[in-house]
């Protein structure tokens, strides 16, 4: 929750360099202390300018152009053509955008609720806690592609879980949840949950460590029930952590390409194609970089707008903290 701390409460004691520092400058590692901070951030700043800022600007630039390496004769200024096409002439744009929002909403809400429950659970004192924590957190380190690998093995129609379920009389042989438009959504949601819940659980558990025990003791003395303790002590304390991890996760899930690309390839019948997947396929298959950039620009604006709205609605880092 570094961001939480960085935005909400810059500790006044350390934000300012302690007085007296300037007097002791002497041998400042070969640079005068005035220039030193700039030298120190220079490598990071240059890398970010070159490989983050410049690409962002060029996305907006390309979005206003026809740009397709396979059709160079059409290249040139396009004005808002690409955007007009997206909004009026591309049903796939609306469909993939809608699926993206559905995907983000379902994943983030379920991950947050399960992650919170899991964090509270492994925050209790019990025998075997360290091992239990290590085990339930372990999918956090697993990649999207490996998650796909695992769930492809589970969902495959011949030797997947449905076969063994059919053996004991549940369902029928040869069912493949990933290729049926009715079951593919819950199937990929479960696969992503498996990997995503530990993220929330780890961050929330970390934040739980800093709740003062005195508060619970006082509440206990006052006879507050565990539910009341949760709603009046734990939840307010976790507020910033929850807001920030939810926001980061939402952006992250919006752009999650690894899992869907490898597990379903956006199928069946385009049923699980998110906007970023569609952008990637436009760029890779039809090389229409201009149009792909326009869709990317739209995605940027949506992400920015949602982030601001969310921070605003949740009054993040308000005076009460």
């Amino acid at each position, binding site marked *: 929750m570094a961001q939480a701390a960085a935005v909400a409460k810059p500790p006044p004691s350390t934000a300012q360099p302690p007085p007296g520092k300037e007097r*002791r400058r002497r041998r400042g590692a070969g640079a005068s202390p005035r220039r030193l901070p700039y030298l120190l951030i220079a490598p990071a700043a240059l890398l970010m300018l070159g490989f983050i800022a410049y690409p962002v600007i060029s996305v907006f630039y390309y979005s206003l152009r026809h740009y397709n390496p396979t059709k160079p004769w059409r290249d040139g200024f396009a004005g808002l053509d690409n955007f007009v096409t997206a909004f009026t002439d591309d049903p796939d744009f609306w469909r993939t955008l809608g699926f993206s929002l559905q995907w983000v909403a379902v994943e983030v809400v379920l991950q947050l609720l399960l992650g919170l429950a899991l964090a509270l659970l492994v925050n209790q004192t019990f025998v075997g806690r360290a091992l239990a924590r290590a085990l339930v957190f372990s999918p956090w*380190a697993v990649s999207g592609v490996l998650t796909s690998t695992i769930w492809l093995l589970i969902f495959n129609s011949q030797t997947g879980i449905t076969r063994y379920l059919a053996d004991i009389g549940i369902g029928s042989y040869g069912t493949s949840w990933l290729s049926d438009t009715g079951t593919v959504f819950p199937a990929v949601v479960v696969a992503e949950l498996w990997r995503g819940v530990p993220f929330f659980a780890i961050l929330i558990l970390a934040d739980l460590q800093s709740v003062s025990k005195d508060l619970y003791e006082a509440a206990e003395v006052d006879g507050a029930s565990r539910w009341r303790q949760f709603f009046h002590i734990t939840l307010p304390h976790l507020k910033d952590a929850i807001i920030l991890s939810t926001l980061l996760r939402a952006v992250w899930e919006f752009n999650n390409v690894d899992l869907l690309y490898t597990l379903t390839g956006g199928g069946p019948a385009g049923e699980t194609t998110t906007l970023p997947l569609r952008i990637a396929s436009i760029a890779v298959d039809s090389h229409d970089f201009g149009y792909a950039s326009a869709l990317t620009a739209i995605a940027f604006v949506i992400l920015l707008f949602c982030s601001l709205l969310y921070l605003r609605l949740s009054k993040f880092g308000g005076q009460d903290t």
Partner: protein
Amino acid sequence: MTATLTAPGKAAADAGTGSTMIGRTPRRQIYLPLGLYLLFTLIPFYWILLFAVRPTGSTSLVPWPITFEHFDKVWTERSFATFFQNSLLVGVVSMVMTTLVALAGGYALARFDFRIKRGFMLALLCSQFIPGALMLVPLFEIFAELRMINSLASVVIAETVFQLPLSMILLSGFIKNVPYVLEEAAWVDGCGRFRAFCAVVLPALRPGLIAVGSFAFVHSWNHFLFALMFLSDQGKQTIPVGLATLMGADSVDLGALAAGGVVAAVPVVIVFAFIQKWLVTGFSAGAVKG
């Protein structure tokens, strides 16, 4: 895996020993949901191990006798030996670069007040919301311009850049937790700023460096998209791309796929086992109190 599966049961047997935790939760309310969640977590791991070590065509749920034919196959025939080397190179180099660059920047943010500091902080926070996945086209152009397409350097740079913001914020939080007076005392003793940093700050930063370094390694090891887009030679590809290729084949060889997945998991499991006890404290010490 079997040893770990029995843990909750064993723990439940010991549950008679009372707890002094405030607001005790009955044992049943802990072990029942925990056991269920453990099943959800562990069955998929068991499943991939099962497929990796049982012979082709077997449908037994107990992998005995085990076979290594699938591992032989992915390692040699499917070039996972090469992919493994490439992934390791990308992971280690990005880890070192990310940590060094973030350490320098994080130190500046933690210890100095300079004119563009607020703007730079804001840029770091904002770049969290800029997804690498949407930047493939312009990044591809840049690397083409730099003649780095099909070179592991492009992937290393891209991984490093997209990890820098978070790593820098985390490390500056850890550095702020090291009292400034310790450094000042070292200067009084005649150390230069750099020597004081090495002697005083660096040792105290160990947990922070471990956390940031291992995030960077695990992330680059796992990441798929940049390698997929920037590397086209088969000999240059990384493990996630190799796995995706196995999955994309017309008739998927499940045994080989499972073995490939296990190979992909090994370094991550080692790193995770090493850092997991720092995972929670690392976040709380370095970041939350930041």
